[in-house]
Structures are given as C-alpha cells and as structure tokens.
C-alpha cells in the first residue's frame, strides 16, 4: 500500500513542481466566500491582466481562508529571492499597483504589506506570525487553510495529505480507534462527546451495512468555521471520513452540507472526484480491499437538521424532526436503521493528523479534559474578526483582547456570545474563564461549534435574547409543545419588554418558562433554546429592569423606547440630515433649526451619524421621562 501511495505522491510532486517553477513568482489569492465577498475574483482578474500586459510569467492561484477576515481581500506574493509576503485590504487598483511595483519593479511595498512568512527580517515588513492576531494561536485544523489550493489534491498530498489514511489502512480497525481514544479527541459539533467512544460503539454495532456521515450543516448563525475548513482544506475532512469508514467497517459516507454554502459544495464535489481518480476513494482503495463511496447531500434550510436524528431523517427524504427519547442510538440504528457514525467537520479533519503524528502529540495540546485546539469564528464588535485557532484552555480575554484586538471605535466591551442559539452571553467578569467544553457550560453558556460574537455597549442584551428566541421559535420543528409554544411565549414577553410593554414579574415568568422548556423538550434545540435568555438575565438583569420599569433601553436599540430629536439651540440648519434622511422625516428651512417627524422616523440613525460634530444637534433619547418630555410616552410610538 505504501508503495502504491508512493507512486501517487510522486506524481503529485511532479505535477506540483511543474506548476511551481522556482524562477517565477507565485501569487496567492484568498478566495473563500469571505475573500470573494471583498472582490477576490475581480482582483485576480486585474492581476492577471497586469501580468499579461507586462509579459510577466507568474503562477496565480486561489487559496482558502487564512482566518484574517478583517484584512480581506488578501493577496500573497512569493517572489524568488523574497519570502512570502501578505498584502491586505486589496482592491483591483491596489493589486495592479502592487504588481507594477513589486513584479515589474523590485519594491515589495512595505506600505501595503501586512506581514511576511520568512525567517529573516525584512526591511519595513513585520513577520506575519509575530502580529498580535497570531498571539498564542496554534493551527491544527486550519493548518492548510490559506496555504494550499483547495482544488488541488496534489498540494494536499504534498503537505502530507492521505498518508494518515495509508497508515490507517495498514493497521487494524481496533488500533485506529484505540489511537483516537488515546488522543482524547472530543467531537467539535458542540457537545464534546468522546470521539473514540463513539467509533468503538459503531464498530461493535452489528449490521450488514454501516454509514459514516459528516455533519456540515453549520446552522449556528454567526459561525463559519466549518465552511472555512470545507472551502480551504476539503481533503482533510474526506480523508478523516475514509479512515472512520475503515475503522468502523462502513463502505458509504455522506456529507450533509448546508444549502447556503455553494462554494463549499462545489469544492467538496471536486475533491471527491480527485480522490476517486487517485483511488483514494472508491473500490479497493490503494489495493487494500477496502471500498468507500462518498456523496454530498445538500441540506434544504432547516437548522434543526444539524441534530443527529433529524439529519438522518432528512437524508432519508423526510421532514427533519428529531426522534424523541428513548430511542436507539444513531451508532446502532441510524441511517436506514443501520449503524451510523456522525461527526462534525472539524472532528473528522483532525483524524488524519492524529494518525500521522500520534495520539500523544494531540493529547499534549490543550487541557487534560479537552485536548487539542478550538476554532472560533470571532465576529461582531471586534477589531480583528476572523477565524482563530487556539489550544483549549486559553483565557477568553486573551482571545478577545489580544488576538481580536478588543472592541473598536472606542466603545466598551459588554459581553461575548458563544454557542449560538444554544449558548449564552458572558460579561467582562467572566473573561478570565478558560475555553473548553466543560467550563463554558458551567458558566451558563457553551462552547458550541465555535461561534464567538463580541457585543459592545451599543448592543441591547434584551434585544439579543429576543433575537435568539425569534430564531429558535422559527426553527423549532414543532413536534413538542414546550419548544413549539413555550418559546413563543417567551418571545412574546421579550417583545413586550422591548416595546415598552414590560410588566413587573416578566423576568420571573421568563425564568420559570425557561426552566420548564429545558426540562421537557424532546431535543437539544428546545433544551437549549432558553439559554440566551437565562444567561442575559443572570448577568444583565439591570438591562431588563431598565426596559420594564423605566421604559429605557440603555443601549439605544429598541425602536419603541427611543426617539431621535434635534436640539433647536444647536441646529444651524445646514440641511445635511434633511438630505440624508431616507424617508424624508426631517423638515426645516435652510439656516433654520430642523425638526424630525417622529411618526415618519424609522430610527435608522443616519441623521445622528451625519450631523457634524461641531453642532452635535441630533440626539437619541430613551426612558419614560425623557420620552414624555418630548411629547410622547413609550407606548404611543408608531413603530
């Protein structure tokens, strides 16, 4: 087997070498979904045009996401004689200029550069890995993302890809599972279930046919770790799945991918075809006698299908409604009632490296209870949003303040939301907590699959709670009463509170409802749906009380509790707000103080943004007394 693979690897090396000639520059374009959203494809065309015009030979290729989404669009240049240099915030114009300076000329343009990958110092350009954004980061899952062309199996093989599979095929299934168990790997889909134990139970399960399923449904709104892995390093997930198939005795696999991820689906299908071509997938893989077929199944837009039994029903062509307990385990009776192994994208993607580098290596990263690394999608009110990968056990504060650079625009940090609709919000005092599966759970949030949304003082915590409840209400499959109706009741109370109709006792009612929904719902969706509400009440009760008792939204978010007005003393009548108002709610003669018609105002806040600082005439007010002094009480608001 080793020999068969060596031939394949040799071909890959030759193909790679032919493409990556040492005497020509390489240009790497970060073209995952986020890169494309900032114009990566236009930039690529502009660069190609410029190269052609100047008759420069260069290799232009697409790579996945390196995680520095805040700096997109990213272009890297590897020019002979120079280390690889990363350039950020590129546009077609800037990229053209860069090619002119650096490739037509010889100036690496430190003013545009973000950092370089070399060992030696380079005048005016810092080493990329010494930037604060990489502080304490350790790339295991994201090892290849942003470095290799995800559409080239050759590059993956060159990075050691598929050698974990070869090693596995040469061992006994029990040995593989033993290694996975020893590594301490826990599932990255949210619950942190020990992966080795799941595999072992699947191996033991009796069945003429078994299945491996990769959960790539990533429905948590505000998370994109799995998308980045699928778009940036699809083969790592595929390799992990083949190893799993061999270990448990399954010959078929499915990748259940969210419908909203077209690029990931495209790249996966391409990767599967390439793996088949090399006989790394399909019949008699590398002559081992082991067959494995892999198929992409596209989800159809239902968050609850991320739950294991719902996902299985969905592949079978049904409504994706989780099965109530007691029910047989998916590992024993899953897809078509056959033993089925279901793991998250990141869980599978780590397996090849564990096979290659050994379980001790993996167990040595992170904490004892949660070994390995955690990938977070750091977003929201944060200076450097993007993907970060850190050893488990790192303090939340370090992730947010050092790596993420803290809250921008001089605003104050308020909370961090982890675990999406199933998780919760943690305040500043909790930032000393280490991130691992168990600690965040105990604090009333959860690790989830890795969404981490930072909130600042312009975020209303009641509004955030309402937002998540609205989400779970919408996504509830509807089969059990607590989840279907209980969440609706909670949502109705939250809507009232945000609309200035909150009553004494609402908070207690929310707590009571939340508790019973957690106790009585069928599946994880209902059981965790109240978490965002409970955690915000726990840590931000004063905000709820301000809404209820004073009709005040401290963050100036809840439309019915705020209004915009113009201070006649300060307004010079410059007309800027009048011209900017999208709904013509502002009136007033030139050079005369303007007014805002409250009934027309949609509370978009543009007038406040455009009013020059030297006047500062537009203000946003809240609170019963203030609103009353402006001629209305909260309940009369037209919105």
């Amino acid at each position: 087997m080793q020999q068969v693979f060596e031939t394949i690897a040799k071909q890959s090396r030759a193909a790679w070498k032919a493409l990556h000639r040492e005497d020509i520059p390489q240009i790497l374009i970060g073209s995952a979904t986020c890169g494309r959203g900032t114009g990566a494809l236009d930039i690529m065309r502009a660069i190609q045009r410029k190269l052609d015009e100047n008759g420069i030979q260069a290799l232009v290729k697409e790579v996945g996401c390196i995680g520095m989404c805040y700096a997109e669009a990213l272009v890297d240049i590897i020019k002979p004689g120079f280390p690889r240099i990363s350039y950020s915030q590129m546009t077609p114009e800037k990229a053209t200029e860069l090619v002119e300076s650096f490739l037509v000329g010889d100036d690496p343009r430190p003013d545009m550069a973000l950092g370089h990958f070399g060992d030696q110092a380079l005048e005016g350009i810092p080493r990329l890995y010494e930037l604060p954004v990489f502080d304490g980061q350790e790339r295991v899952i994201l090892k290849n993302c942003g470095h290799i062309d995800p559409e080239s199996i050759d590059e993956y093989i060159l990075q050691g890809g598929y050698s974990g599979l070869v090693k596995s095929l040469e061992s006994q299934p029990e040995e593989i599972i033993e290694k996975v168990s020893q590594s301490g790997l826990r599932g990255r889909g949210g619950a942190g279930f020990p992966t080795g134990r799941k595999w072992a139970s699947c191996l033991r399960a009796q069945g003429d046919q078994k299945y491996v399923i990769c959960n790539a449904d990533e429905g948590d709104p505000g998370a994109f770790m799995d998308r980045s892995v699928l778009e940036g390093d699809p083969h790592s997930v595929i390799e992990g799945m083949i190893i799993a198939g061999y270990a448990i005795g399954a010959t078929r696999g499915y990748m259940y991918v969210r419908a909203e991820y077209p690029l990931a689906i495209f790249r996966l299908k391409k990767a599967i075809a390439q793996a088949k071509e090399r006989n790394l997938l399909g019949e008699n893989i590398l002559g081992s006698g082991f067959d494995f077929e892999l198929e992409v199944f596209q989800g159809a837009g239902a968050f609850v299908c991320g739950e294991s039994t719902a996902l299985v029903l969905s592949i079978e062509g049904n409504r994706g409604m989780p099965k109530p307990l007691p029910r047989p385990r998916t590992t024993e009776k899953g897809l078509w009632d056959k033993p089925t192994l279901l793991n998250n994208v990141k869980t599978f993607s780590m397996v090849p490296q564990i096979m290659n580098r050994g379980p001790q290596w993996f167990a040595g990263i992170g904490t004892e209870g949660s070994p390995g690394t955690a990938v977070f999608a750091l977003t929201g009110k944060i200076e450097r949003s993007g993907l970060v990968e850190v050893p488990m056990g790192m303090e939340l504060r370090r992730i947010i303040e050092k790596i993420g650079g803290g809250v921008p625009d001089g605003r104050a940090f308020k909370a961090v939301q982890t675990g999406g609709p199933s998780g919760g919000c943690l305040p500043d005092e909790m930032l000393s907590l280490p991130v691992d599966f168990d600690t965040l759970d105990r604090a009333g949030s959860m690790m989830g699959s890795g969404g981490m949304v930072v909130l600042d003082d312009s975020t209303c915590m009641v509004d955030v709670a309402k937002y998540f409840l609205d989400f779970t209400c919408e996504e509830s499959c509807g089969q059990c009463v607590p989840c279907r109706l209980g969440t609706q009741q909670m949502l109705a109370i939250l809507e009232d509170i945000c609309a200035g109709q909150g009553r004494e006792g609402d908070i207690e009612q929310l707590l009571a409802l939340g508790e019973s929904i957690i106790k009585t719902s069928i599946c994880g969706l209902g059981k965790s749906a109240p978490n965002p509400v409970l955690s915000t009440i726990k840590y931000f009760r004063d905000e709820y009380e301000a809404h209820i008792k004073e009709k005040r939204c401290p963050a100036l978010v809840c439309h019915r509790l705020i209004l915009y007005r113009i201070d006649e003393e300060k307004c010079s009548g410059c007309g800027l707000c009048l011209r900017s108002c999208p709904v013509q709610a502002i009136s007033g003669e030139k050079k005369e103080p303007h007014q805002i018609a409250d009934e027309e105002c949609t509370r978009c806040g543009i007038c406040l943004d455009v009013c020059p600082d030297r006047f500062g005439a537009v203000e946003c007010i809240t609170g019963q007394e203030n609103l009353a002094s402006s001629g209305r009480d909260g309940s009369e608001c037209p919105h």
Partner: protein
Amino acid sequence: MREKVREILTAFDGDKSQVIPMLQAIQHEVGYLPEEGMEEVASYTGLRRSKVYGTATFYSQFYFTPQGDHEIKVCLGTACHVKGAMNLMDTLERELGIRCGETTTDNKYSLKRVNCVGSCALAPVVMVEDHVYGRVETKHVKGVLDKSAASV
C-alpha cells in the same frame, strides 16, 4: 411544465430517499416547485402527494410560487444582526416596495432573509444569487440592486 419536470427527474432512479435532491433539481431548473412538479415526484417515487408536500414544506429552501429573476437575501444572522442588518432589510423593503418574503410585481426581485451565510466577518452581508456583498451600508443598497439588475 410536466414534460420539463419529467425530463429533470430522469437523472434520478426514483428511490424515495431522493425526494429532497429531486425537489432541489426541479426548483433549480424551474425556479420554484410547481404543483405538477410535486405530483410528478410523488408518482415517480410512489410516495403519496401529502408525503412529498410534507417534506417540501418543512424546509425553508423550497418555494411554491414563482420567484423573481433576482434573489436578494439579507443576512439576519447574529453577527449581521448586531451590526444593523435590520436597517438594511428596512431599506431594501422600502426600495423595492415589498416585504421580506415577497416578490416585486414586475417579477424582478424576491427579497428574503437568511440566517448567516458564513461571512460574518464581513457583516452586515447581503447575498444576491450566489454572490456575497460584505460590509454593506444602507447607502450601498441601491448600488447592489443596480449591479444585480445589470447581470441578467
């Protein structure tokens, strides 16, 4: 229509596990799921029509009425929500004169919401067809619409 749907279904072997991929294929070609399509899937797979409808109506991806030429999706995921995505939605509703979930009378645009397209770092995000527009401000909305109109 029936002929067209039958043609699409020839790519499948009629196994009832393929209901969702079949519906996706029909919607991809036709733009929505017409009644004939549902009937054909039912008879092709041997499932009852109620069963096929049951599956289709469970998933938010499927539509049962014709959609506009351009599909505008505003992301209302968490990251986009806290960065003011609701204001974008309001602006689009106003510009297009329709509510979220509706289609303009000239059948040009359908306006939809989506819970995260996985580009949270670029929040707030608007997706037109498969293209993601990042860091969209209310003042960019018109430009996004014009650009999509130009790409017929």
